[in-house]
């Protein structure tokens, strides 16, 4: 097993759901409860030193019979060790919220806004959790699997030009 997984298992054994190494890159699935501690440990532990957060995104595992419906995915990179690591934190459909990583890596803010916009996952402690791609008054979260491709009438309800205005 990879160094990262071993170090995490020593400290957060109860939080780990699954660990693997698909395509040669170590991945762990964790519970969401202590995600901020886990991420801070991965950054600050000198043996791991994941100083860079490459991306935060989310996955909708609807009808996949995993631990929960949504997973928030953190892709980490360590410049000093030239190593990559991925953490998936599972988030329930009933309460899609998780602690923000913005206080650990400042660059998490925009990526978390995108995950909020597209999946409706709330990042607690985020300094400015607004939509980033869709209009501010847009209803719904379009990358959820149960969201229809053509939307729920958002296009049709938009203000239209009529010949009377001509």
């Amino acid at each position, binding site marked *: 097993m990879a160094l990262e997984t071993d170090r995490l298992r020593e400290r957060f054994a109860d939080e780990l759901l699954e660990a693997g190494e698909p395509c040669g890159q170590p991945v762990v699935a964790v519970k969401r409860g202590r995600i901020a501690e886990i991420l801070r440990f991965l950054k600050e532990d000198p043996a791991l030193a994941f100083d860079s957060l490459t991306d935060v995104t989310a996955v909708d595992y609807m009808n996949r019979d995993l631990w929960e419906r949504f997973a928030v995915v953190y892709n980490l990179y360590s410049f000093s060790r030239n190593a990559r690591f991925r953490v998936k934190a599972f988030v329930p459909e009933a309460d899609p919220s998780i602690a923000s990583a913005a206080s650990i890596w400042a660059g998490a803010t925009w990526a978390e806004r995108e995950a909020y916009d597209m999946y409706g996952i709330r990042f607690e402690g985020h300094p400015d959790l607004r939509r980033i*791609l*869709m*209009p501010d008054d847009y209803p*719904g979260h*379009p990358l959820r699997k149960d*969201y*229809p*491709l*053509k*939307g*729920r009438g*958002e*296009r049709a309800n*938009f*203000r*239209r*030009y009529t010949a009377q205005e*001509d």
Partner: protein
Amino acid sequence: MGLESSFENNVITTLLDKVVNWARKGSLWPMPFGTACCAIEMMAALGPRWDMSRFGSEVIRFSPRQSDLMIVSGRISIKMMPVLLKIWEQMPEPKWCISMGACASCGGIFDTYTLVQGVDQFIPVDVYIPGCPPRPENVIDAVLKLQEKIGRERVREKVHGA
């Protein structure tokens, strides 16, 4: 002393519409609203190889206040549409619109939650260009078609807001 000295004082009888339209159609100043690959083809049409200046329409203005032809080239999302409307409303009358390519005209292949299915739902379009993206020849053809159309207009009826 020059050419005018060989003519006497003179009078030309014509229609006001014809004079005004003749002046308007020969010098369309486009406002490029390029948001996607169509904009690349539009730039090619303006460049030296296709050279739209042969038809009096090369003076691209990035200020809506100085332009009278909006070329919508590319897909327009529902977040971009208010921006397009604002720019369109800032353009002084008389003004015309070319909807370039499948996306601007009808949404194209992007029949999705975020994309406007045709800018003609919001602004009056004079000429549509089919294609994905259209070639520069099509852009020039559209400008020539628009010039024909302007030639047939009644000046008094042109103003959109009236």
